């Protein structure tokens, strides 16, 4: 029964190790004891309707969170379009899921701009912006990354984390959906945090 092709055996071992590593990461992320200071933050920001929001945003319902900005030609629209397509596939079962687009560029992304941007994708995505120092608390608190990259014209671009953060109704990080993830895998990850019918 042993595979004769040595390449198949190597491939088997490699994929086995990969799965083990993945399981390790999953166990680490879903472990009951949150690590001190990690994946949480208190903050005071506003949503795209100008209403105040804070850390309670992540409690009570599972959520999918993205850190991006509207002056982003490629990665952000692609990701939000993918989120829209996840929501479509989840259908009614996905209705408890909240989706948030936090801007890493709150200086330029006003609530009005955020509203215009997110609603172009879906009425299910909520934009979040506010004071840059408050936004930084969320970015660091969730171990995301964002950095301003100045241009010679006086403008700037932002370097930022591309992963989608999947947060459980308990406010804990349950997993990450990387950029360009396979739709089926992404939807499976999301289903796992949804309340079981």
């Amino acid at each position, binding site marked *: 029964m042993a595979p004769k092709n040595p390449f198949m055996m190597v491939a088997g071992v490699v994929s086995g190790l990969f799965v083990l590593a993945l399981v390790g990461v999953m166990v680490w992320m879903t472990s009951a004891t949150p690590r001190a200071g990690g994946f949480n933050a208190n903050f005071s920001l506003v949503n795209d309707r100008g209403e105040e929001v804070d850390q309670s945003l992540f409690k009570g319902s599972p959520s999918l969170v993205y850190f991006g900005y*509207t*002056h*982003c*030609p*490629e*990665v952000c*629209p*692609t*990701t*939000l*379009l*993918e989120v829209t*397509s996840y929501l479509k596939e989840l259908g009614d079962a996905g209705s408890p899921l909240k989706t948030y687009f936090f801007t890493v560029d709150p200086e*330029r992304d006003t609530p009005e*701009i955020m509203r*215009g*941007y997110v609603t*172009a*994708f879906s009425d299910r995505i909520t934009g979040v912006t506010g004071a840059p120092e408050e936004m930084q608390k969320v970015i660091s608190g969730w171990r995301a*990354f964002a950095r301003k*990259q100045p*241009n*010679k*014209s006086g*403008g700037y*671009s*932002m*370097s*930022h*984390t*591309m*992963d989608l953060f999947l947060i459980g109704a308990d406010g804990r990080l349950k997993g*990450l959906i*990387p*950029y360009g993830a396979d739709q089926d895998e992404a939807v499976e990850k999301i289903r796992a945090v949804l309340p079981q019918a």
Partner: protein
Amino acid sequence: MIRKNIVIGAMLGALLSFGTAQAHGFKVGEIEIGHPSSRAMLPVAKVGGGYMKLTNNGADDRLVSATSDRAGSVEFHEMKMDGGIMQMRELPNGVTLPAGKTIELKPGGYHVMFMNVTQPFKEGEMIKTTLVFEKAGPVEVEFSVGPVAGDKNEHAEH
């Protein structure tokens, strides 16, 4: 009959090639500019990416600047994806075009950035842009606007 089939074939080919835009190209001096393309922008978006294939059949050259009536300024940026982070940086000296090489400006790499766009690009539009090469000089090109980034209906890029 054969003629008709050729016409139908050509029409099908055009439909399949890039939604509304067929592959197109420009030339200045020894530089070929293959299918400059962009993406439809969202209603409030202020920036758009531009992509194309630059083939230099002559001596070393450089894409130094660009202008367009549709953008406050046009810059060249490099996008890098590293460890789950998207890094953007401007290429202050433009895009180097070594002799005999083809450099592709594409998503996830070097690209044109249309900055301060007041009227977001719409699918099917052509964005008139002047590219300036250090040695080959200026050339008028048109960026054809395809679907929004990430649109699953987009199968082929030329």
